């Protein structure tokens, strides 16, 4: 289950920290001059300390774990830096104040970026606490190897997963999934296969940076006596908080488990009969939520 998805920002900040930390440790005197801090007593010690702190933040942020915590340590570091700059401004001469003002402006902007990243990461971490986990299963009258091959070609999934528009499989084993969103829009994400045992198990996970981190795992089990295959599906979604989260929640309806069951019913229809079964009252096929009893059993007009 992917729980990291908070966008690329924490990693970018990690790279920034790494570069800055390395520079501060390598050439503290030169940077002190540029920033306008070289008049402070102990400025070398201060800048080396800041450099070590930055390298620590970089390690945390680039690890990909707990981005909320590490982005907040950056915000705390920013506060320290700004207070040092305030001290320097009070004691510096006219020429240094100009450079200090520029430095303060740059750090201020970085602080704003860090605050944004920290707030987003915190929201995402909270959303991860609300991961939707769905399970459903179905028995189909086909052997496991055939059922596995059908799922392994991920491009087949939109044939029965109603919320998906398309899955495009790239050459590198990664795939781009496009889902229908309300109001005719669509959302997409990239995923990779993380477990692949032919005729037994297939699992995938969205790549870091996905707005809706998600993962799925399907097990294929032969039913003894040539009675086909049990297909057991587990899906997990971590909808983000806020407006986007509500939009994603809408995608899965009020009864997400029912939707997965409907998906599997359509999967069974497709693999056993070659088509989605349509009736006059349900011309788009099985969809408990949308079509049940909505129109009479009469042919569609036109």
């Amino acid at each position, binding site marked *: 289950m992917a729980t990291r998805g908070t966008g690329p920002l924490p990693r970018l900040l990690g790279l920034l920290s790494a570069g800055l930390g390395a520079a501060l440790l390598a050439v503290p005197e030169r940077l002190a001059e540029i920033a306008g801090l070289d008049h402070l007593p102990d400025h070398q010690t201060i800048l080396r300390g800041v450099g070590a702190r930055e390298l620590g933040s970089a390690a945390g942020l680039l690890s990909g774990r707990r981005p909320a915590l590490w982005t907040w340590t950056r915000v705390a570091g920013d506060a320290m830096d700004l207070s040092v700059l305030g001290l320097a401004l009070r004691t510096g001469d006219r020429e240094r104040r100009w450079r200090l003002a520029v430095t303060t402006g740059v750090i201020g902007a970085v602080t704003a970026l860090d605050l944004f990243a920290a707030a987003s990461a915190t929201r995402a971490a909270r959303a991860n606490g609300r991961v939707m986990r769905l399970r459903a299963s179905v028995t189909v*009258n086909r052997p496991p190897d055939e059922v596995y091959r059908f799922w392994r070609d991920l491009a087949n999934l939109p044939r029965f997963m109603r919320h998906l528009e398309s899955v495009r499989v790239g050459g590198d084993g990664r795939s781009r999934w496009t889902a229908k969103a309300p109001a005719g829009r669509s959302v997409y994400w990239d995923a990779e296969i993380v477990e692949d045992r032919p005729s037994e198990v297939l699992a995938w996970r969205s790549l870091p940076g996905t707005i809706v981190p998600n993962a799925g795992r399907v097990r294929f089990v032969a039913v003894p006596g040539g009675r086909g295959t049990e297909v057991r599906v587990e899906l997990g979604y971590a909808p983000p908080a806020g407006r986007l989260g509500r939009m994603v929640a809408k995608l899965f309806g009020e009864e997400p488990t029912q939707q997965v069951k409907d998906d599997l*019913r359509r999967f069974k*229809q497709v693999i056993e009969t070659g088509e989605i*079964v*349509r009736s006059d*009252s349900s011309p788009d096929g099985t969809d408990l939520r949308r079509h049940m009893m909505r129109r009479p*059993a009469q042919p569609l007009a*036109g």
Partner: protein
Amino acid sequence: MRANCWMGRNTVEVREVPDPRILSDRDAIVRVTSTAICGSDLHLYDGYIPTMKKGDILGHEFMGEVVELGREVRNLRVGDRVVVPFPIACGHCAACTHGFFSVCENSNPNAALAEMVMGHAPAGVYGYSHMLGGFAGGQAEYARVPFADVGPIKIEGDFRDEQVLFLSDIFPTGYMGAEMCDIQRGDVIAVWGAGPVGQFAMASARMLGAERVIAIDRYPQRLRIAQENTGAEIINYEQTDVLEALREMTAGRGPDACIDAVGTESHHPSGAINAYDRGKQAVRLETDRPHALREAILSCRNAGIVSVIGVYGGFVDKFPMGSLMNRSLTLRSGQCHVQRYLRPLLDRIRRGEIDPSFVVTHRMRLDEAPQAYEVFKNKQQDCNKVVLTA
């Protein structure tokens, strides 16, 4: 096109509706030449089957000419004359491959609705509620037939429609009711309900070797048709105590097998008991009135078979489970797996072993459907079976 639509309890209307179109590659469109009203259509008409919607096109017994075919249907051609089985079946799921077409696992897109009532879902059926798929029925000028490569049987030879139309439902249904009785030489088979399904069950029991067949009903005309066409002995339950009569006729043994060809709206000769069950049905304490089934169980000989082909919708009350269990009875039932019987029963018709048209008493036009439902429901003019033609 014109089609007979359910418009609420006790109301059907022939209305102008859109023509059906091919929706899937395995579909066919059939121009309906003959269609019948089934006794089970009366359960819809009387409002006892849930999940009906105003405007639903009725009818699950129909035949006609193929006018359009989906790309995947290779066993039929435009112009073929076909009879269409009432259960819609995909032909590939586990149920279909074992011959249980009426519990096809794929043909009911609203299976989840049926699962709420029945635990698991049966197949889709033409014109028989949204719980059974929400398919438009065949009491219309045209009908869309899904999985046309599996269901319809092509009719060759100069049969009249009336001779083959009932392959769509009531002949195979009656036949399966008799087949479930495992008939042995010397067997006595009692059939509750001498309507067309019961009449076909009696005729089939004879074909399968029953020694004696006993018909139980209250309409003299229906008992007469059964007697004349199947050689059945008859019991009018309004004049005779059924259990006593059956004991007497079998010297105390009871019939070897009992067929319930009545179903959910059975009638009891005692006004009080009838009113009791109707009352419970009205307040939804039970959805079905099972007098015939109760009597069939109590009448059956020890270790005999009770075969249920009358349609039930939901739950029954006062079910004599003690009698069933303690006397080693076997209960068998099912909507008919029509596809299984089409070929062999058509062969029996071709060989002259039976002419199913004996059940027809009324021939009317599709436009007269509302009147036909009233006549059939109230058994006016000794009505036994109505065939509607365009």
